[in-house]
């Protein structure tokens, strides 16, 4: 009986449940101050705002679970969004959605392979390796192709931009809130990766190498190949995500995503990933992204100036870190079994 109570208590106070409580409290507080918050429009806004964060967070999550870290995806993403539009502008790339996304993903692949070689073959610390890749990608791009800004989309991307999943019209104000079809990308990515991480030897292998690389080697996992996969997946998916960014934001610059890595890593950590590897899952990461997106997009509804945003995100990260530490303490208190 007691063990069952204890189990229930543990389940109710687990990290994801606490995140859900925090999110719920935040939503309740906002909706008390701004009843307009409780509207499908809010859901659509958050859905739209969270698209890139979610995709990038899944990329980063896979790398973190494998015991690594990738801080190069914003720079790689910039290359992946800039080069295709640049080439198209100069008539060197056909105006075709598949061409744009294909090239973006190919660029991501190249940098993913580079990261993979640096980390799994040359055994560089992942932070340093991907920091180098980041600088090389970002600096190389500016050196080779200059710093322009593309603010008009080629017709094919513009057409993609106009495809919506649903459009909600607010009866009172007449405003319309469209939800882009591209929202399906993070949804699909989450579903697929949740299945991969839980039900395939590839996914379990990533957990295994993140937990103890040496034990994984003895068990017969191909540690190098798995590390390689993590970085390549991260690169390719980040490339595609960058092209989604360009499509939705009508903007492609050489620095658009720079600096995003910290907030993405924060979302992963808040969602239960441990930077030491081996821990984290898609569900937790979704909660982490949701919380951070909520804070980013709805602070003004609480009457807090947007300039407080970074500060507030810092608080969220702190919450995540403290939560992890408290949970670890609780576990020590429970003792070994």
């Amino acid at each position, binding site marked *: 009986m007691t063990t069952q109570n204890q189990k229930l208590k543990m389940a109710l106070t687990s990290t994801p449940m606490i995140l859900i409580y925090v999110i719920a409290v935040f939503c309740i507080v906002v909706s008390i101050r701004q009843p307009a918050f409780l509207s499908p429009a809010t859901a659509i806004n958050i859905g739209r705002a969270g698209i890139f964060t979610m995709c990038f967070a899944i990329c980063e999550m896979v790398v973190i679970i494998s015991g690594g870290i990738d801080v190069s995806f914003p720079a790689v993403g910039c290359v992946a969004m800039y080069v295709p539009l640049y080439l198209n502008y100069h008539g060197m790339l056909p105006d075709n959605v598949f061409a744009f996304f294909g090239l973006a993903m190919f660029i991501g692949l190249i940098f993913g392979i580079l990261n993979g070689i640096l980390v799994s073959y040359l055994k560089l610390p992942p932070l340093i390796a991907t920091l180098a890749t980041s600088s090389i990608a970002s600096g190389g791009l500016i050196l080779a192709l200059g710093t322009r800004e593309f603010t008009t989309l080629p017709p094919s991307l513009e057409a993609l931009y106009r495809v919506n999943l649903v459009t909600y019209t607010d009866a009172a104000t007449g405003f319309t809130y469209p939800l882009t079809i591209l929202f399906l990308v993070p949804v699909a990515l989450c579903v697929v990766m949740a299945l991969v991480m839980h039900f395939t030897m590839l996914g*379990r292998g990533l957990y295994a190498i993140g937990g*103890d690389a040496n034990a994984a080697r003895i068990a017969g996992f191909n540690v190098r190949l798995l590390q390689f996969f993590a970085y390549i997946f991260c690169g390719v998916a980040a490339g595609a995500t960058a092209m989604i960014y360009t499509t939705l934001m009508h903007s492609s610059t050489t620095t658009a995503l720079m600096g995003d890595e910290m907030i993405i890593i924060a979302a992963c950590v808040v969602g239960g990933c441990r930077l030491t590897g081996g821990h984290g899952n898609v569900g937790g990461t979704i909660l982490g992204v949701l919380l951070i997106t909520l804070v980013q997009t709805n602070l003004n509804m609480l009457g807090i100036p947007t300039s407080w945003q970074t500060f507030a995100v810092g608080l969220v990260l702190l919450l995540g870190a403290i939560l992890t530490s408290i949970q670890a303490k609780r576990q020590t208190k429970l003792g070994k079994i």
Partner: protein
Amino acid sequence: MSEEIFLKLEGIKKSFGGVHALKGVDLEIRKGEVHCLAGENGCGKSTLIKAISGVHEPDEGSIWIDGEKVEKMKPMDAINRGIQVIYQDFAVFPNLTVAENIALNGELKNKAKLVNWKEIHETAAKAMEQVGAHIDPDVKLERLSVANKQMVAIGRAIVNDAKLLILDEPTTALTAREVEKLWAIVRNLKEKGIAIMIVNHKLDEIYRIADRLTILRNGAYVSSGPISEYDQARFTRDMTGKDISGEKYNAAASEEEILRVEHLTRSGAFEDVSFTLRKGDVLGLTGLLGSGRGEIGEALFGIAPAESGRVVLNGKEITIKSVADAMANDIGYVPEDRLTQGLFMQRSIQDNTIASSIRRYMKGARLDEQGMEDATKHWIKEIGIVAPSPKPAVRTLSGGNAQKVVIAKWLNTDPKLFILDGPTVGVDIGAKSEIHGILHNLAQQGIGIIVISDDLPELVQNCNKIVVMRDGKVAAEVDNSIDEISLSNLLIGANEEEVESK
């Protein structure tokens, strides 16, 4: 146990870059027997295990498994032939569940692409049943005690059809009771016809479990035979190549009091502890894990100070509220986990030796290099640290030598009282007796020595006075005329069932 031989090695030789790690080793392991492989550190045990498990290919010699000569064996071949090694760190995944840890290797062996969670749970349940352990399959490994992690590792080996299970120093991190449980499991596996090879060099532990014994020394085969043919003297002689006296330590009678502890209490750890240490005494402090034996050492050294009670050192009452207080009163302390708490592994012998007495070598803003080197050389010679110079990093030393460096570090502070927690854990028999010799010498010079340990033979042999702790209280104070069995009974309390039910 049958007479049928499962594994036979003949004249196995292996060298690495000119160093002969194995110089012709013979070994025979029969089906369903428990075979102990013993030898001091560096005798080639690890290399031999790696040869058996296909990690190293021997330069010379032959290996027969199940009557079949095997050549160019790879790790996977060894596994497929039923050889499973359980390394000291168990090679388990802390972040995965018990069930997954048990079943993942098998899934991998079958080249599965997808994970069948139902099958994983079935496999884990089967393994647990065979091992006879009851561990929640959904708990992550990081939550398990060392003993239970070991159960999981054994379970994993068994479900992978182990015919020979090699346990590399399986008892190092276990309590006496956990060792008993492990031996019960080993007996159970033995009855199933599985051969078990245990690497261990504590005769009192293996006496209760092993059928036969093989001893290696310096990479060479020394002797082999039924365990009944060995007594402590032969065992030690075969392992070290020299006779080590089994004489007990007896202090020259003295009434001069060095340390008196009265009513020392720290709530939750120990209560009303009193004892006296006279000149020449080596005082043993023992008890089960959690009895407060280690906490008293920590209190006397100020790591977790006592809340009440008196400590009188050399006739002067002292107050110890911090490590700095303890050091100011010339108390030295060697922690149980010396590798993480007592040594800077990456630094040189010299840096470690002077680490606690560095102020002495400050000459203005500079350090007296010559003085530090001289002091280190003095201790290298004095207590027999095997090292070419004061310069090598401590991590390159063997366990026994590293332990001597910790001792040197404190001796260099001229301690009046020297507390050692588990001073010979992980130390070879040869080095062990040297360390004991050092301690006896120090005691006779008038330094108070307290040895905290649960190694009962060690205590009886080396301490002339033993304080037994139980549940935070002093259960008994005895001299070294006590035998190990009575001492062991004192440790767990007269009424064993009561202890069992806790």
